């Protein structure tokens, strides 16, 4: 026996043992600490044909925008409050790319200046018919001009009238003014009914940069708390990608600490009482810690880090490692001889470890980084823990320590020794449960929506709801983008999207849509076309006609006909195409809503509001257009998650075959191997069927837990099978009883931990708990009942009995 020889070697070389343990632990811990954790679920999805979009997603800043809302006071008061809050926030602008909460007065001046220099660029050729109408209605317009001029106290209105006496600006503006949906009060952004002040903050990092997100959100929360103390009359709400990510991560950490942490402490205390020794705590914990740091170090060496979500799920897998420790510790307490313990336990523990790793390694055949990370982490964690359990741990076990609480063990014996396999009611009930599981297994749903596995706090939901109520008019704001490496190419592509969305709006498929970008930004070529059209329109005859109409209307309305020189100069002027994007006229906080330059690519956004029912239909139409992207990772993830689901079924098949082959090699009998394989096989269908019956669904996360059910199922099965075979060959063998005690403790630990997860806040942790609990209970029942029953039946076959006893 290899492990017995290793034990003897280290017994004679204790210094070497301790040195190896300490040095390896330090090395693993050092590299484990350097591992990076990826929180971007999108990055964990399979790479598909649509990954070009995925590449853009990570860097699109518009989706990472934070929305801050202030409500509860008069708008004029909130104007000052917003400035005060933003001043405090911007004292430390680390992590903030830009903000938008007020439009500086110079913006209007600069915009007017730019517009005056590039008037023709903003005139769509279809608008010239309106110009004709404006000339025809010069009289009516001049009457309004007269009122403006007479009420002018600064000369600015007169200037405007002398430059645009026909109000041609109104031909350009009506579409824009209706669609922005915001109200400006003293230059500050408010929702349309002025009850909520709006602040938009664009981070200068990606939402899933957890460190930066945490830092920024903490700073914002701190500023909001301080502000609240000074102004308890108003409420400040916040939502957005980074806020969600930080809330998600902190809730997950707190939930894991509370549910798993506290239940583990209680369980370890129970073990201490049962075994009348506190050593049991570190004897169980150390192998798991060693396995974890070994796995994290391996992940660092292989990939530089891993998915945080995979680590979270992987923590559950450590329950399997705990099972091996318990087997070794419990067996040692019964036999009181380390070498004997190793002789009895090394093979089943190694076999269990190998088959469980096999179950996990099947996931390496999937295309999902999440599943691959989980698979690798679980594999290394089990290898490390098992190695510690069989190599280091035996040296820390007290050879003569066989103490245990008689009362506790009496109860355990009573539970373990109950002849479940001879009770017809239990057998029939279990068969019914399995049969129902089989029947309904096909009906379990797979939830493709990633939103359902994230946590959103009440405050977050309130903020989202308020924003939707005030700004989305009961609809949903969707962001679409066109992307190209050249701004002009992107602008031309945007024209197609703009026209498509406009026709959808006219067809009633959209609530609102304002083609802001296509009205403000044009490619050089388009601007040249428009300038040519302007010159074609404003012929000397047309200018003379317009000026005659204007002057006549002016005289008629009591105004001097000589004040319109600027108008004539404007229509007769020479124009050149401009570059509004680079002009600096539009502040960054506003510009990033229209155009974004990322990694040498330009993205141009359109943001219609539509009903939720139409979202997919409209997104499908837009996504089919050249260069177009739906700026919603979840739009693309549905298909990718389905791919994970399909992948996963394939992985399960591969794992099953691997486990069965290992069992076949180990037991060298197809019937015994099938019997050992049975709990894992049946429990998978029980889990699926009963989840369907209970209205639970699988998601990208909890489906991974099925590998854990496989792992633990096959472990229990192997230990029970070894015990049953031993009992068959030696009537007096106590191996089955010892294994059952270890299984009892292992199952107790896991059921309590999984049960505690049901009380978590995070939906993912709850779903893991539900799925694993059903799996665990079914696995144990099958292992304790059907496996011995069928084994007993099989032993009635003389040929098989002879082979087993041999």
């Amino acid at each position, binding site marked *: 026996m290899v492990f017995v020889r290793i034990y003897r070697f280290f017994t004679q070389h204790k210094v070497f043992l301790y040195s190896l343990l300490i040095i390896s632990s330090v090395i693993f811990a050092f590299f484990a600490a350097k591992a990076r954790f990826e929180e971007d679920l999108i990055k964990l999805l399979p790479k598909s044909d649509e990954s070009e979009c995925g590449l853009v997603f990570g860097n699109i800043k518009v989706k990472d925008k934070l929305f801050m809302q202030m409500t509860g006071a008069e708008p004029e008061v909130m104007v000052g409050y917003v400035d005060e809050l933003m001043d405090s926030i911007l004292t430390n602008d680390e992590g903030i790319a830009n903000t938008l909460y007020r439009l*500086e*007065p*110079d913006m209007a*001046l*600069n915009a*007017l*200046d730019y517009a*005056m*220099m590039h008037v023709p660029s903003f005139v769509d050729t279809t608008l010239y018919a309106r110009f004709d109408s404006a000339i025809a209605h010069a009289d009516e317009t001049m009457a309004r001009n007269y009122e403006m*001029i*007479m009420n*002018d*106290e*600064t*000369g600015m209105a*007169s*200037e405007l*009238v*002398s*430059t645009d006496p026909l109000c041609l600006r109104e031909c350009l503006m009506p579409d824009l003014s209706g669609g922005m949906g915001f109200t400006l009060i003293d230059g500050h952004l408010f929702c349309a009914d002025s009850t909520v002040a709006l602040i938009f903050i664009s981070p200068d990092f990606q939402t899933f940069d957890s460190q930066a997100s945490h830092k920024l959100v903490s700073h914002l929360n701190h500023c909001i708390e301080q502000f609240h103390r000074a102004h308890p009359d108003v409420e400040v709400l916040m939502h957005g990608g980074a806020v969600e990510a930080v809330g998600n991560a902190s809730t997950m950490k707190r939930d894991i600490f509370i549910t798993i942490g506290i239940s583990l402490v209680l369980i370890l205390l129970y073990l201490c009482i049962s075994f009348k020794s506190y050593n049991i705590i570190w004897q169980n914990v150390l192998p798991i810690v060693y396995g974890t740091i070994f796995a994290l170090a391996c992940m660092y060496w292989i990939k530089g880090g891993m998915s945080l979500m995979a680590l979270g799920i992987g923590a559950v897998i450590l329950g399997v490692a705990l099972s091996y420790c318990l087997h070794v510790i419990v067996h040692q307490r019964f036999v009181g001889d380390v070498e004997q313990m190793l002789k009895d336990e090394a093979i089943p523990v190694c076999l269990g470890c190998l088959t469980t790793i096999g179950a996990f390694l099947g996931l390496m055949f999937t295309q999902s980084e999440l599943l691959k990370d989980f698979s690798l982490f679980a594999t290394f964690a089990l290898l490390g823990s098992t190695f510690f359990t069989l190599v280091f741990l035996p040296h820390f076990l007290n050879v003569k320590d066989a103490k245990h609480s008689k009362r506790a063990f009496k109860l355990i014996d009573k539970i373990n020794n109950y002849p479940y396999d001879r009770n017809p009611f239990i057998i029939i009930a279990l068969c019914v449960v399995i049969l129902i599981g089989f029947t309904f297994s096909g009906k379990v749903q797979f939830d493709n929506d990633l939103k359902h596995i994230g946590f959103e706090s009440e405050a977050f939901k309130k903020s989202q709801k308020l924003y939707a109520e005030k700004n989305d008019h009961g609809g949903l704001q969707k962001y679409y983008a066109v992307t190209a490496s050249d701004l002009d190419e992107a602008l031309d592509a945007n024209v197609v999207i703009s026209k498509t969305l406009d026709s959808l709006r006219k067809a009633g498929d959209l609530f609102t849509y304002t083609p802001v970008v296509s009205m403000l930004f044009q490619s050089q070529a388009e601007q040249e076309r428009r300038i040519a059209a302007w010159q074609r329109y404003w012929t000397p005859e047309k200018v003379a006609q317009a000026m005659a109409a204007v002057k006549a209307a002016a005289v008629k309305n009591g*105004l*001097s006909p*000589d*004040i*319109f*020189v*600027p*108008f*004539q*100069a*404007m229509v007769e*002027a020479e124009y050149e195409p401009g570059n509004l994007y680079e*002009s*600096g*006229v539009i502040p960054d906080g506003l510009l990033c809503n229209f155009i974004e330059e990322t990694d040498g690519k330009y993205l141009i956004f359109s943001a219609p509001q539509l009903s939720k029912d139409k979202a997919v239909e409209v997104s499908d139409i837009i996504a089919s257009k050249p260069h177009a992207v739906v700026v919603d990772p979840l739009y693309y993830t549905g298909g990718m998650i389905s791919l994970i689901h399909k992948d996963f079924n394939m992985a399960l098949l591969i794992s099953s075959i691997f486990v069965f082959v290992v069992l076949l090699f180990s037991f060298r009998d197809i019937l015994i191997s099938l019997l050992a394989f049975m709990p894992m096989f049946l429990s998978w269908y029980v889990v699926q069927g009963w989840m369907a019956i209970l209205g639970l669904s699988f998601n990208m996360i909890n489906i991974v837990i099925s590998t854990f059910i496989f792992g633990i199922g096959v472990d229990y099965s192997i230990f029970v099978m070894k015990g049953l075979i031993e009992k068959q060959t030696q009537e007096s063998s106590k191996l089955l009883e010892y294994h059952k005690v270890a299984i009892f403790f292992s199952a107790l630990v896991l059921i309590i931990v999984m049960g505690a997860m049901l009380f978590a806040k995070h939906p993912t942790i709850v779903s893991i708990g539900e799925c694993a609990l059903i799996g665990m209970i079914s696995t144990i029942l099958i292992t304790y009942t059907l496996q011995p029953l069928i084994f007993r039946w099989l032993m009635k076959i003389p040929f098989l009995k002879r082979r087993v006893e041999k």
Partner: protein
Amino acid sequence: MKKLLTIIFAMLTFAVSAQKVETHFTESKFIKASGKTLEAEGTFKLFSADKMEMRYAKPAGDYFIIDGKTVNMNMRGKKSMVDTDKNAAIRSQRNTLMNCINGNWKQAATDNNAESSVVEKGANKIVTLSAKKAAPRGYSKIIITYRKSDNLITEMVLEEFNGTVTTIKLSNIVKK
């Protein structure tokens, strides 16, 4: 010789432009469109060749400040701070004003595509800049009166293409 004259001229221009002045001003804006005249007054300060301020006592609180490339304005409570690099119209206005105040009217004429003429009248020199071509923005005519003794500006008339005429008169000039 030509080089020497150029250097002397540049030095003189610098000397003039570097003058620091504080003075009272009156401003009269005739709006042709409405026939109204808006009267204003306040304190004019010239700090350097690219920094000046006009603080209005009437209407109280208004100001017009040029500080390098930035123009700060407050007109009836509407405050704005304009970066002249981003705004051609205000850049042109700023440059015209500063050039005229600093005596660089030739540059102002070039910038405004204007013809210039100079007439000496008593102790003053009157420079007239007339736009060669009508434009949507800017001034059709600028008349600047300089005090011959020290080349300091005493009056400026800015006529826009729409007929609006702004007359600024400086009095009680104190050199700092």
